[in-house]
């Protein structure tokens, strides 16, 4: 069950919201609604979805920044949610996060050296007289210079700041890194640099990535496997190449057709989705995607599709592909 490096089973995170000023009736935002996946050591899982799909919440819950409503996370077999404070702290050393906004993720009143030094001192990682060398080493690792140590975040460019964020995450020598849209706030030219840096680091330090993004072209570049999220659920999951060549779920197909091609002469048919993502408070009955799906059937409005295998390492939750498996479902009923 828990022999993989990171295993997430049926993870749920609901946020309570009050309806109206005086009502005591609470409704829930179903940010993450039963998500399961696993990542092997040294691999990268890309988690994609539009904003509001709950992908960022997955990352935050994994790190314990948000408390899960239910579900389990196993990190090398350890049940993360059952850990006491002290054990959790030592686990924190092993998983880290890189944030989306390089302008908001660094403390503006602290020098780069101060920031990295603090991380080292929280976990008593190096002796005091060796701290500066270790900081310099970390800066080298992410492609910065030691003389950047005494500078403040506002003296750096966006790409450099993101490198600082990466250095901070690496300071504790983690094994798993949750990259929460690490390049989506950067210029396209800088994006490639940061992605290459992340790949180099993965090779050098044997890192495992959960790579969260809304941009499929970025995910394609870096992932081994890709999971597509819609309204708090994973709707399709496959190996990176497989997913990009044979997308099954209509939502994935729509996402893929929205990826821009950097060639003005080539035209592509866009599979445009109508409407916005449905409110995660009042979920539609049946398939969550049915009100925007171009291939919607009657069944989709009544019955929620389950994730099912569609060949080698490719799963999707869509009734379009579950016709032939009806019998197996019926048997269970």
């Amino acid at each position, binding site marked *: 069950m828990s022999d993989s490096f990171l295993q997430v089973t049926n993870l749920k995170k609901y946020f309570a919201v009050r309806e109206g000023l005086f009502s005591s009736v609470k409704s829930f935002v179903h940010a993450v609604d039963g998500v399961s996946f696993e990542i092997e050591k040294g691999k990268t899982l890309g988690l994609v979805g539009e904003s509001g799909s709950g992908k960022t919440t997955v990352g935050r819950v994994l790190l314990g920044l948000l408390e899960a409503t239910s579900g389990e996370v196993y990190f090398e077999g350890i049940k993360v949610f059952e850990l006491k404070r002290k054990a959790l702290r030592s686990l924190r050393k092993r998983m880290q996060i890189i944030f989306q*906004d390089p302008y908001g993720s660094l*403390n503006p009143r602290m020098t780069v050296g101060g920031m990295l030094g603090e991380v080292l001192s929280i976990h008593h990682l190096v002796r005091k007289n060796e701290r500066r060398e270790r900081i310099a080493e970390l800066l080298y690792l992410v492609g910065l210079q030691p003389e950047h140590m005494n500078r403040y975040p506002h003296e750096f460019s966006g790409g450099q700041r993101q490198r600082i964020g990466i250095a901070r995450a690496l300071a504790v020598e983690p094994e798993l890194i949750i990259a929460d849209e690490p390049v989506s706030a950067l210029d396209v030219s800088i994006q490639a640099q940061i992605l290459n840096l992340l790949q180099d680091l993965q090779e050098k330090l044997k890192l495992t990535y959960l790579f969260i993004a809304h941009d499929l072209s970025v995910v394609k570049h870096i992932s081994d496997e890709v999971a597509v999220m819609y309204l708090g659920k994973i709707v399709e999951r496959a190996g990176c190449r497989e997913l990009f060549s044979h997308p099954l779920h209509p939502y994935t197909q729509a996402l893929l057709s929205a990826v821009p091609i950097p060639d003005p002469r080539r035209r592509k048919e866009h599979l445009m989705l109508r409407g916005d993502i449905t409110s995660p408070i009042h979920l539609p009955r049946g398939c969550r995607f049915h009100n925007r799906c171009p291939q919607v059937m009657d069944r989709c409005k009544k019955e929620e599709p389950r994730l099912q295998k569609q060949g080698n390492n490719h799963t999707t939750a869509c009734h379009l592909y579950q016709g032939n498996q009806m019998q197996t479902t019926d048997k269970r009923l």
Partner: protein
Amino acid sequence: MTDDRKNQLGNLPTGQSLWRDACGRLRKDKISFFALLIILLYSGVAILSQFNLIAPDYQKTDFVQRYLPPSGQHLLGTDHMGRDVFQRVIHGSNISMKVGLVTSLIAIPLGILFGSLAGYYGGRIDELIVWFYSTVASIPELLLIITIAYVLKGRISAISAIYVAIGLSSWVGICRVMRGEFLKHKEREYIQAEKALGAGSFRIMFRHILPNVFHLVIINFSLRFPAAIKTEVILSYLGLGVEKQPSWGLMIADAQQELSRGVWWQFVGAILAMFFIILAFNIFGDALRDALDPKLRGEKI
């Protein structure tokens, strides 16, 4: 690593902190620099008069020389007991500056403490603290001060009672500001990063969030200070403040009866002394806000 590189790491160029940035900005502003000079002048005068180094004859009465108009000998004339008004104005600055400083030192740490706890922890703690400061804020300030001062009067000296009373009644403003800021900052990504790195709550609150909101504390201090001065003047005027020391409030109260006899100098002296320090604080406070609050500069942070 080689010694050579170790030495290199020892002397790296230093960066430009946001504080230094703000100081540079402040220095360029001539009016606020002048206001700061006035504040420093008042502080200097207050310290010197504390040790009786200037205007030593402020308590000397001379009933022959009552109500003398301003002259070379008595710059601001004399009062109903023949005391030199100018010397008393000077000594009045002592009590004013002390009230401003001591009450701020009581109110600001209280406000920071309650505000940061409420904003950072939220939930029950927040509800309790908000309820508490709402209750305090709903009592008219002067009444609250007078009540606290009366309760304390027998136990500690009158002036200490005033310090404590003003201090305990004026922490709500800074507390509200701090609560809001902590609420906002605890969701910021740099704080999320610290949490993910395993930093404890107190480290996050006081090493990460507080330095990022401290400019608001300084701005609040620059507003708190003149407000406390005014409050002390009002209290002394009402006869609830200091008794044996000269205070601008007491002088204004005394001057009330004198005004009808055409003796205006005591009144004008005390009012002008108060006017300049409060004006200086207001100008300096504004400049501080411009220099320290990045939102008003339209700069990314």
